[in-house]
């Protein structure tokens, strides 16, 4: 037996490296393909030639190239970033809550952030745009606190989700009340509130990107501790993980990531629920791979959803959040049924 141990590869984890990297490269290729389709398909379809030209040798006079660079490209960038951030937030939430049903949308964090953003915009009309993410963070934190209080000490996954649904309904209702009071605001915000991505969102991205970048970098630093935490709270603690601090940091990162996304594109649900499960099918439970895989998969999913939003009822558009809900709701139901068996 001892001989076999000695002849084992230096580290089996190392043997996985080429496979994992190849998988990631394939996903990036898929992302590039979807991004290309996203740029060339839409209300008016454009040829591959004009797509190439728009990217390499942009001529603003050409109408087709103009659509690509001024309308679709900003929208693509927003979809990429939003999808990636939501997916990473979902991985973090499922990890620290030890709950496969956790998602910033289902647990009320998105709707809390949305309510605070709407409230902030209506109550303080003169506020600087740079403040918007901060409203969203405050709302996300408040909602998270409410859900934690409601779900109690003995957290069962189902109870946590139930508390999340209640808080989501509460904030959605309060947002509706605010908008009834202010009819003008309704027209401006209705689009945003169903999770819409538009060309103008690139400007909003400028207010939140430092937050998003910081959030993603700090999440990467947690990967090792998340791996240890996967063994259970007590085992992680005995391995030297400060479990309380890890949970607090993860929650703060979820708040920053999903708050930033809400400030840009409104509450988009289900990406944070679905993508971690997809990533786990590919790389199982090593967070050092799970996080980058989820990042790319989230971007792929949201770019695809945004593409579908623009082409299924051409020349009209559906909001992207509605597409992600159409895809995500059945997955959610399947997960719940799977747990009940």
């Amino acid at each position, binding site marked *: 037996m001892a001989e076999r*141990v000695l002849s*084992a590869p230096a580290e089996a*984890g190392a043997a996985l490296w080429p496979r994992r990297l190849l998988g990631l490269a394939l996903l990036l290729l898929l992302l590039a393909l979807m991004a290309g389709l996203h740029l060339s398909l839409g209300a008016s379809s454009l040829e591959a030639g004009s797509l190439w030209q728009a990217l390499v040798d942009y001529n603003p006079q050409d109408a087709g190239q103009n659509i690509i660079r001024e309308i679709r490209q900003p929208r693509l960038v927003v979809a990429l970033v939003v999808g990636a951030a939501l997916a990473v937030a979902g991985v973090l939430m499922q990890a620290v809550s030890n709950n496969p049903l956790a998602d910033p949308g289902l647990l009320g964090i998105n709707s809390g952030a949305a309510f605070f953003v709407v409230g902030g915009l209506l109550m303080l009309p003169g506020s600087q745009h740079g403040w918007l993410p901060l409203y969203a963070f405050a709302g996300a934190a408040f909602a998270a606190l409410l859900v934690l209080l409601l779900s109690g000490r003995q957290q069962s996954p189902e109870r946590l989700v139930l508390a999340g649904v209640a808080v989501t309904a509460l904030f959605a209702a309060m947002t509706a009340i605010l908008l009834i009071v202010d009819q003008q605001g309704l027209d401006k915000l209705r689009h945003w509130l169903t999770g819409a991505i538009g060309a103008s969102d690139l400007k909003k991205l400028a207010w939140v990107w430092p937050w998003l970048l910081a959030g993603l970098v700090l999440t990467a630093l947690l990967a090792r501790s998340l791996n*240890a935490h*996967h063994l*259970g709270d007590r085992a992680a*603690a005995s*391995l*030297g*993980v400060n479990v309380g601090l890890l949970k607090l940091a993860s929650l703060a990162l979820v708040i920053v990531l999903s708050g930033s996304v809400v400030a840009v594109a409104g509450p988009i649900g289900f990406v944070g629920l679905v993508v971690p499960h997809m990533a786990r099918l590919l790389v199982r439970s090593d967070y050092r791979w799970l996080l980058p895989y989820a990042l790319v998969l989230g971007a792929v999913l949201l770019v695809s959803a945004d593409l579908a939003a623009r082409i299924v009822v051409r020349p009209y558009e559906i909001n992207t959040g509605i597409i992600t809900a159409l895809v995500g709701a059945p997955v959610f139901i399947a997960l719940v049924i799977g747990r009940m068996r």
Partner: protein
Amino acid sequence: MLSIESLTAGYKRKTILHDVSLSIPGGGFVALLGANGCGKTTLLHTLAGLLQPASGRVLLNDQELAGMSSKRIARQLAVLPQVTEAPAGLTVRELVMQGRFPWQSWWQQWSAADQQAFDQAVAATGIADYLERPLEQLSGGQRQRCWIAMTLAQDTPLLLLDEPTTYLDIAHQVELMSLIATLRDQGKTIIAVLHDLNQAAAWADQLVMMKAGQVYAQGPVAEVFTPANLAAVFDLQARIIKDPHSGQPICVPLAESQRAGRAEVCADG
């Protein structure tokens, strides 16, 4: 090596340990015995720094545990928790590799020392045959050995084991006991909660007997393993005989009908 001074600890609204003092010297195998609910696990968790004492101190090599970083503690002592799960999607190899967590950092991921400790832990627990299998597919006994391997891979001078023989069949229990004896001979200190009194008496150097949140008796097996102590701690009437070959003390519980001669046995003990 590890000592506690007038320790009171427990959970919210319930104090479990009352004013416990205990000193465990380095390099020995200490078995922690006591009836269910007497505070063995609470004591083990407090010794490991997993539970903060309400009052009193835990000293590891004369340094207070409360002031040490959890990583530094994890390089000194490893804990095998009582209920060990099978985290979803994890292979045996990945579990055992996690034992090296306190020795690694973000920029230094897997060293030769890590590999050596990993190989030794795998060889000592005999789990090399199913390293690549998911934990979920293993039997309770196999899984328990994998968790023990994870604890060994941590390569600490101190090992705290909470009922390590759970799920193990008798042959593997004996194997684990002799593994612990080997580790002790290598200079490690092992503290283990055990249920089998005879196993504890046969293998441990020292016994700590707990009753109702306090240490009732502590000392070498020969001094502490007495009918009087067993009666007080476990409410068990038993006779202690000696194994004719090894001379190890063995406790034989007495049924109601046999207890007539109890007084004499106690007088002997």
